[in-house]
């Protein structure tokens, strides 16, 4: 038990989703400030997962698979970029890399946003968890773009037309924002993949992406990026869309040293 013993039993009930009323409110208030109890709650959910994964049963009927595939086919999504964040960067990409002043404006704006986000986090302690998570993610993006220790890497290709990319990397929080333009349209069955090449070890996948009609693309906080990795280089390759995407196998498009 890594948390407080007096909350041990309530933590188990909370993991199961059966804690109610005052007991739940009291525990949730405590969890806000107790990393040990949050850790124990995660461990108890791990125990729940083990029980779930031990539950034997028949395979789902084949129609369920088709039903899901039909459903997602009716919900096509734009690749790679996170809705909302894409719009934040489109205008900037359109201005081109020469608009360094525009970048300064963005930084100032984000610093203001950073201030207001901090204010919000302090004042709105009663926010629901999804809102808190969204704020935390937004905060990570802001930190990645504005922290003094953020590494900024420009990637450039040697051939014309020249695709360009800019990576903002905050290693201790595994924050990564990558913006690219002048990308060539993708051939059929191909996809671009961003790589973080560490000082030692194998390249780490940092997101698949497709450019829009103007050749612009963004990748924001790709999932699974480990924290604390010292980056030597960022690179983009052209990979098979069907994968695998765990290691670079395709042709190089651009790269830049950190």
């Amino acid at each position, binding site marked *: 038990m890594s948390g407080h013993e007096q909350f041990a039993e309530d933590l188990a009930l909370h993991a199961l989703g059966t*804690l109610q009323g005052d007991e739940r409110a009291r525990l949730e208030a405590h969890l806000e400030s107790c990393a040990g109890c949050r850790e124990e709650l995660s461990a108890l959910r791990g125990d729940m*997962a083990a029980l*779930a994964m031990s539950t034997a049963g028949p395979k789902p009927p084949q129609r369920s698979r088709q039903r899901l595939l039909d459903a997602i086919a009716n919900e096509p999504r734009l690749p790679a970029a996170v809705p909302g964040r894409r719009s934040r960067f489109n205008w900037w990409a359109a201005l081109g890399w020469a608009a360094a002043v525009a970048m300064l404006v963005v930084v100032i704006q984000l610093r203001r946003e950073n201030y207001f986000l901090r204010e919000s986090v302090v004042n709105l302690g009663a926010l629901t968890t999804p809102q808190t998570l969204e704020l935390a993610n937004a905060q990570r993006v802001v930190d990645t773009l504005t922290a003094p220790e953020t590494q900024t890497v420009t990637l450039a290709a040697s051939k014309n037309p020249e695709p360009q990319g800019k990576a903002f990397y905050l290693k201790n929080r595994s924050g990564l924002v990558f913006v690219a333009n002048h990308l060539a349209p993708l051939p059929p069955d191909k996809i671009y993949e961003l790589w973080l090449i560490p000082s030692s070890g194998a390249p780490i996948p940092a997101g698949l992406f497709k450019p829009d009609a103007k050749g612009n693309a963004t990748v924001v906080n790709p999932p699974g990026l480990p924290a604390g990795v010292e980056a030597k280089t960022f690179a983009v390759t052209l990979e098979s869309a069907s994968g695998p995407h765990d290691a670079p196998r395709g042709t190089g498009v651009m790269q830049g040293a950190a």
Partner: protein
Amino acid sequence: MSSTDLKATSPDTALISAIRAGDQTAMAVLYDRYSSVVYSVALRVLGETSAAEDVLQDVFLQLWRNPGAFDASRGHLGAWLAVISRNRAIDALRKRKPESDIEDVVLSVAPDLVSEADRSRVAAKVRAALVMMPAPQRTALEMAYYEGLTHTEIAAKTGEPLGTIKTRIRAGLIALRKAFQE
């Protein structure tokens, strides 16, 4: 080897990245990998196939719509989906709106669950631990886990004191942890 075969060997994180890029094939691969566990736990809770299929559909649609909700810090993907499936099934059983967003679910699982063999080994250990568990403890845990009953409801059904029920539920979960960590 076909592209489908290649995808079948891709790590979860690579498939999630592909899903973020709108790759429907990657979604199909993840479905093939984890639909059995998602469906099994939903069926155990709900006891009715069409309702379990609805939960199965809902869990994977949530992943498709919001793949960013999962990252490696939230635990193993299969375990994460299994917990979400159980929670969604309990919500359906109790005819209530989903009480928690999928982004709320963060879990840590000590054993390595990457391969099918690892998952089978853990499942066998957990089943053995359930068999070895004192009957009152197992009953309390299963009533809370598969029926979503509160400790108050379990105490009313079993005639046991509230504190005893709380202790048994936690002890049951900890016993499972010890079993799969061995």
